[in-house]
């Protein structure tokens, strides 16, 4: 995978979560993932097509997403419910939007599909392109999440 893809998604994730959820995620070192197992308890997945094709997934631990969505809605949410699922879809959509805008500056014109959300322990994420995906790990005080992206030019 092209290393040019890392920064747009990293920047998109930080920007969206800072602006909408008032958290400052700390990025870890990116690595390649070969299996389909999600790194979190709830994931949003969105298909991408255009000058690069593939998919983007965001996978959150329960504690991380509860904090993020509680901040977004100004309510204290204690378990994964419909609001959380909606929000994961919307966060995925927004991060994809910012990342695609950043990629446009690099000469990549990419469209996105409607996001889907999967919840549950040990669920899997299947990227349409197959092959290894790039994981960018993030942490907030309450938990962790990953950006899991598989894009091919």
């Amino acid at each position, binding site marked *: 995978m092209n290393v040019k893809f890392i920064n747009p998604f990293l920047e998109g994730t930080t920007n969206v979560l800072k*602006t*909408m959820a008032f958290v400052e995620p700390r990025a870890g070192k990116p690595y390649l993932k070969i299996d389909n197992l999600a790194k979190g308890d709830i994931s949003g997945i969105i298909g991408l097509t255009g000058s690069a094709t593939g998919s983007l997934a965001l996978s959150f631990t329960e504690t991380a997403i509860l904090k993020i969505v509680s901040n977004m*809605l100004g309510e204290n949410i204690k378990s994964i419910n419909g609001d959380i699922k*909606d929000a994961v879809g*919307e966060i995925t959509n927004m991060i*994809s*939007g*910012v990342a695609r*805008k950043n990629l446009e500056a690099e000469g990549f014109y990419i469209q996105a599909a409607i996001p889907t959300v999967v919840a549950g322990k040990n669920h899997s994420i299947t990227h349409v392109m197959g092959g290894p995906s790039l994981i960018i790990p993030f942490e907030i005080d309450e938990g962790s999440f990953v950006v899991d992206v598989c894009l091919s030019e």
Partner: protein
Amino acid sequence: MNEKNIKVLIVDDFATMRKVVRNLLKQVGYEDIVEAEDGVMALKALKSQKIDVIVSDWNMPNMTGLELLKAVRADEELSKTPFLMVTAEALQDNVVAAVKAGVNNYIVKPFTAEVLNEKIKKIMENINK
């Protein structure tokens, strides 16, 4: 025009996002807020009450924000209603399509309450000129 007197219609298929936008609007003083979950419901709401500004998402099933904008502009009774498009699509082609269809302004997600307020105020100032 004071924020308190501006009736805002939020159109978004995600209930959570409608809640987020409502909270942001409340933070900057808007009180008269109604919601619709898609373009079809938005047109119903627009026909049944006086709306001062539409804040609509772009990506929605059944009727996209762009289709809603075109429907509003094509309706004699509603055609002048101010329309702010909320989108995660900051791509140039989309912006051009929205401007061609008559959008008053657009706002790219993610955004703060202050930016949302600025956009609405600018629209209201322009139409009252």
